[in-house]
Each structure stands twice: as C-alpha cells, then as structure tokens.
C-alpha cells in the first residue's frame, strides 16, 4: 500500500522538524514537503498535489485558515488539518469552517498525530471535547455572531456533541445512543459541513489568484 503524501506548513522550526520526523517516520505516511509560510505552501501546491495538508494557523505571511479555504476550493479531494495550540478553539473552528476536517495540537504525542491523520484519510471526522464544547456554547448563546453559513444543529447532533464534550469516543457515543460508529461519524461530518457552507466563492477567487486553478477558459494541455 503506497504511503499517503503529506504537505506540512509550520513556521516554528522546532515544531516543524518534530512533526516532519513523526510523519516521515510513520510507515503509512510520507512527507511531500515541509515549508514555513503560505508562499512556500502555494509554491508547492502549484507543482504537486498532496493527499493531506497539515498547516499551522498563524503563519508569518498569512493565515492557515485562508490557505485551507483556497486548497479545499481548488482541490476538494485534499484533506486538510489545522495545527493548533491548546486553548485556541476559536481558530480551530475557523479552520473547520474553511474546510479542515480535523486538527492537531503542537504537543500531541507522536502516536496521536499519526492516528489522527490516518483517521482523517479513512473518512473520519475527528473532533475534540474542546471543539464540541465551543460549538455547543455558541449554539447556547443567543446573540453570538454566526459563523459563515451556520445553521442550527439538529437535536441528534446536539446529543452527539454533548457526549463529545464529556470526552466519549465515537464508539462509546454510538453505544450510548444506539447508533453505529459510522452514523456518529456522519453526524460530525454533517456538523462540519454546516460550518463550511457559503464560503466557497471567495475561497475560489483566492485559489485562482494564488495559481491553484487555471484561469477560466484555459484547458490543461
């Protein structure tokens, strides 16, 4: 089985080399490139297409959120993950709204990193208690500013989020609610899609400007 290619974008050299080592050392993953800013990432993306984009949110020449949005608009098949620090749920949710399907913490253990990337590639939608809580808090606060395209959660989605918030795994949630693992995963994906609606237009323009897409009317030779 060929290894899955990963593009790593992280400006802190120590973290970059640590994550690069984790990915490079993982039997099922291969590191396509490790760059330190948006420009480098776009440069790489114009030349080759990774299966996974792993990007920090705060970059010296831009935001990882914007990078994720552009990549997802131009190449929806690329899975994106944000790299965050703990206690920064707002940026993680922004990254999810832009199209990320999961996130890592910079100090996560190596095993956890590999596991999360593989889960993502396997069609999973990883979520954490922190993110679950953040989304529920927003839904509970009547006047919170809505994220782009946000629509209310269904009562089942709420139930799932409430258990996520208490630290239960997908399987445990499935057991408690009498659902299958895949249904719980689908609920989370659905929640992510609710956050991601309506931001495609500006993301496409950004992707075209960055050269990820050919201008309209030109065909690939």
């Amino acid at each position, binding site marked *: 089985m060929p290894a899955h290619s990963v593009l790593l974008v992280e400006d802190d050299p120590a973290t970059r080399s640590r994550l690069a080592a984790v990915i490079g050392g993982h039997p099922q993953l291969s590191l396509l490139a490790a760059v330190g800013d948006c420009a480098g990432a776009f440069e790489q993306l114009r030349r080759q297409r990774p299966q996974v984009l792993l990007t920090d949110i705060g970059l010296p020449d831009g935001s990882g959120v914007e990078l994720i949005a552009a990549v997802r608009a131009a190449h929806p098949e690329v899975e994106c993950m944000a790299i965050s620090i*703990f206690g920064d749920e707002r940026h993680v949710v922004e990254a999810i709204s832009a199209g990320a399907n999961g996130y890592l913490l910079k100090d996560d*253990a190596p095993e*956890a990193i590999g*596991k999360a990337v593989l889960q993502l590639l396997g069609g999973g939608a990883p979520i954490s208690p*922190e993110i679950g*809580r953040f989304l529920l*808090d927003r839904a509970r606060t009547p006047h919170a500013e809505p994220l782009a395209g946000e629509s209310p959660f269904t009562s089942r989605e709420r139930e799932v989020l409430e258990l996520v918030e*208490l630290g239960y795994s997908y399987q445990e949630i499935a057991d408690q609610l009498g659902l299958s693992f895949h249904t719980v995963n689908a609920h989370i994906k659905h929640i992510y899609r609710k956050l991601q609606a309506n931001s495609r237009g500006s993301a496409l323009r950004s992707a075209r400007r960055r050269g990820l897409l050919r201008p309209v009317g030109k065909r690939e030779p």
Partner: protein
Amino acid sequence: MSLDAGRPPHPTDGRAVARRAGLLLLTLTIYWAAVLWLRSDPPVDEGVLQLQRMDWAPATDPAPKSAGSPRGLPVDGFRQPEVDGWYSADITLAARPQQAWAVYLPQVVMNAAVSVNGRLIGQGGSLTPPVARHWARPLWFLVPDGLLRAGSNRLTVRLASEPAGTGLLGKVYLGPAARLEPLYRYDRLVRVGVAETAFIITLATSLLIALLAWLRPAESLYRWYAAGLGAWALHDLNLLLIEPPLPVWLWNRLNTVTVFWFAVCCLFFTLRLLCLSRPLFERTVLTLAVIATLLMPFTPDALHHPVRLPVWETLALLLAFYPALLMLHAYFSRDDLEITVLALSSVVITSGAIRDWLVIAGLLERGPGFLMHFGAPVGVLALGCVLVSRFNRALRRTEQLNSTLEQRVRENSAELERNLETLHAYRRRQAIADERSRIMRDMHDGVGSQLVSTLAAVESGRADLGGVALALRDALNDLRLIVDAVDPNDADIGRALARLRRRLDAQLTAAGIVLEWRVKPLATELHPQAQLQLLRIVQEALSNAIRHSGCRRLRVSCSADGVVEISDDGRGMAAAANAGNGLSNMRTRARAINAELSIDAASPNGTRVRILLPVPTGAAAESRF
C-alpha cells in the same frame, strides 16, 4: 410701625421718595379728574328748563299746596332737616309744545313722583314704606301729550326717603324729550351701568379668589381678600335693588355692616401681604367688629345720625384708613411692584371713602351718589395685577428650580458614572491581580516545581533522556490543567475530565490499557481552583495506574452528585504504596478543597481512588482561596 417683613427695606433716598410721591399724586389726580369728568353736569341745550328753586310743603300735607316755603335746589337730607315732601314750581310756556316733553330728575334719593298740572305723570316706585330705593339712579318721566299748555303750568315733585328725611333732590329739568334724553342716557350709563358692572366683577373676583384661598389654605391673605370683596359685592347690591330683599331696617344695617367688614378684611389682608404679625391687634379688631355688628340693630336708622355717624361710619373709615397707611409706608420704603400697585389703589379707594364720609357728615355736597362703589373696580384691577405678577414670578421660579434641578441631576449622574467607572476599573485590576497571583501559585505548585526538579536532574548529570521527556510531558500536562482551570466560563468537572482523557489516550493506547469512561456533568459548579486541584488528583491517580499498577483496564467515573472514582485491575495497594510522594500530594490537595479522598482495594483486585466533592462545592471551595 415696624416692618419685620422678609424683604429688606429699600434704601430711601430723597429722589426715590420724590418720585414715588409724584406717582401717588399723579394717580390721585387722574382718578379724581376721571371722577369729576364723569360726574360733571353736561351743558344743557337751549330750550330746556332747569329749575333752581321750588316751593316746599311737608309730606304730611295730603296734596301740594299752591304755595309753600321756597327752597333752592339741591336739597340734601344730610345737610338740612326734613327734605321729604312736596316741591312745586310754576312754569310759563309761550306756546303749547308741539313735540313730546319730559321731566328729568338726575339725582333723587330715594324716590319721587312727578305731576304736571295736577296730573300724576309717573313715579319711581312706592312712596310709602318700604320706599322704592334709588341711590344714584336718574329718573325720567314723559309728559303726556296735551298736558302742557301755553301760559302757566304747574310742576310738582313728591320726594320720599327712608329713613324719612335722609333724601336728596338734585336738579329738576323740563324740556323736549329729544333734547333731554341723551343726558338721561349718559347719566344712567355712568351711574347704573358702572355700578352693575362693578358688582358683577367684584362678585366674580370674590368667588375666584375664594377658590384660590381654598386651594391654598396656607396663604390666609387670599381668604381675607375674598371675604372683603364678597362684603363689598353685597354692599353694592344696595345700589342696584329698587325693592329691598329684606325688611328695610335690617337691609339698611346690613349695608353698613358690609362696609365695616370690608374695612376689616382690607386690614387683615394688608397685614398678611406685608408680612406683619400683630395677633393681639387682630384679635382686638375682630372683637370690636363683632361687637359693632351685634350692636347694629340698636343703632339709629339714619346714616348721619349724631350717634351712628361718629361711631360706626367713622370706625369703618378708620379701619379702612389704617391698611392704606400701612400700604403707603411700605410703598415708600420698599421697592416692590406689587406693593406699588396695591398702595396706589388703596389710596385712591380711601380718598373716595373720605369723600363719602364727608358727604354723610353733611360737610360736602352729595352730588350723584357715593364714590366708594366706584372704588371696587380699582381694587379688583390692582389685585388682578398682583396675582398676574405673582403667577409670573411663581412660574419663573419653577423654571429656575427645574433647570437647577436638571443641572444637579446631570452633575450627579456624571459623578456617579465617574465613581462607578473608578470602581469598575479598581475591580478589574483587583480581579486581574487575584487571577494572576492564583495562576502564579498554581504554576509554582505544579509545572514550576516539575521544571525545577528536572533542571536539577539534568544539571547534575543524573538524568536519562526518557526520564526528562516524562518529566517535561508531566510539566506540559500540568500547564494544560492550569490553562483549563483559567477558563472562567467552564466550571464543569465533566468537561475538564474530558480534556484530560484526550491527552491520556495516546499513553493508554501505548500501554495497551482499555479505558472505561463513565463521566456525567456535575450538578453544581466548581470553583476554578478546586477544579484544578481535582484534575491534579485525578491525573496523579491515572498516572499511578498507568505507570505502576500494570493494569489492563481502567475505569473513570464522575457522577452528577460529585463522586469521582478511578479504579484499575492492577496490582493493588502495593502499587499505590510505590507511588509514595504522589499519594501524600493527593491527600493534601483533597484537604485543600474540602474533598474526602479514599484509596482502597478494588474487587477482585486493583486499586480504587474515590473523591467525594463537598456540597455545595462552589461556595466552600471559594472560601478557601
């Protein structure tokens, strides 16, 4: 006269006094000029006969005699004895008049009947008691056609008064009706019209002021003014009613009583207006007034009787005189528009009263009636000015007060806002300082001491890489606990435990331990500090289980009523004993948050750590920190 009024006396320099005296004289002059002009006899047209003398015969005669004692007109009961009776004159006409002729009597007190050539041509009402009452009302009689003839004619006027002898007969005119009528109409307008108007205005004002007095019971001066005007209106009725509504003896005395009480009311009003407090004087005057009123029925009927005039009429005049003097004094010593208006009007009215007194005393000619009646409109006008000025002043004061009040409210709210802001800023600073010192304490307690001991181990060269990595990971974990505990919005231990689980997952997987997770949200809130201590206890227990117990299964549960349990199926208490330092740390932390900690054997094997959180948790934990 002491002026203990609230307002300071005006500094009286010579020029101010002169100016005020000038104004006073001017007012009196204007008033008297107007009175004299209104009451002067208009020039008589040619062809109108004015009788200067008539022959008099006493009323006891059944019919006018052909000749009596001649008397010059006017005759006045106040100045001469016995004026009632028959007055006759012979008038010689060159020819029989072609147009209608009339007899006009401008001044008759109280009633008259007129005959021409022995035939009665009219009379102003009853000639016998109760006699019809005409005080200032001119009498007008048309001579029937053909009664006057060429040559000698005889005109007879029968004069009657009540009490007998107090009457008056002024001029007697005979002439063409067309020429005399304007004269009659003018006199009627000036004397009857003005008197009626004055009565209505006085009565209406009295009622209005009475309403004001009722609305403002604290200001008794309005009460006295209303009463005074009411008395005066009653007095005015005497001028208007031809038939007295009461027995004549009572009606006549009531007339004097009303004047008397008018004077009393004026006095009391003035004292209050000038803020003069004379309770003894007031009591004396009131007692005198009541006695005088009660004595009235026993007084002689005639106004000018030598007993009645000096006592009652003079007393009334003096009573009216005193407030006028008070007003005059105030007028010259204070600078006040209100007092100026009232003083001028009271002087005007008093001058009319003096004149009337002189008439009753027989010292002046009566002319067409008394003047006092025409004083009422002046007084009412003056009071109107005063009330308008008071109203205006009150409004202005209210406006000023309002604006002052608004200003003050604005200032106070601004001040309050500033204070609140200061307080908020202080509280913010205080909260930040508290939070900072708490975080510092937490750091020293956990991550700080871990880093220090790790550093010491590295520097001494005793550390192996694995141990350092473990220590750093512990430090990192503790840092995460601190960050979690900083969140003021999340006091739920269930959520905090959930975050702990995510961090432990990799370790558990690596150690091959299966985790059983039974966490429910806690019913009560937990103070961040208590939450941190609890998380540290749980983390310690989990680390012990993972590192030392050799367990395969690990169970973490948290119930809604605050029981947190960590149990494993490892080697049991022996492993717990290995933990050593960690156990005593756990106990210290549990004591710090008033929680009960128990560590015992799980069945069939393993260790169970049980933490009972205090209830209510929030308040108890808060009090500790």
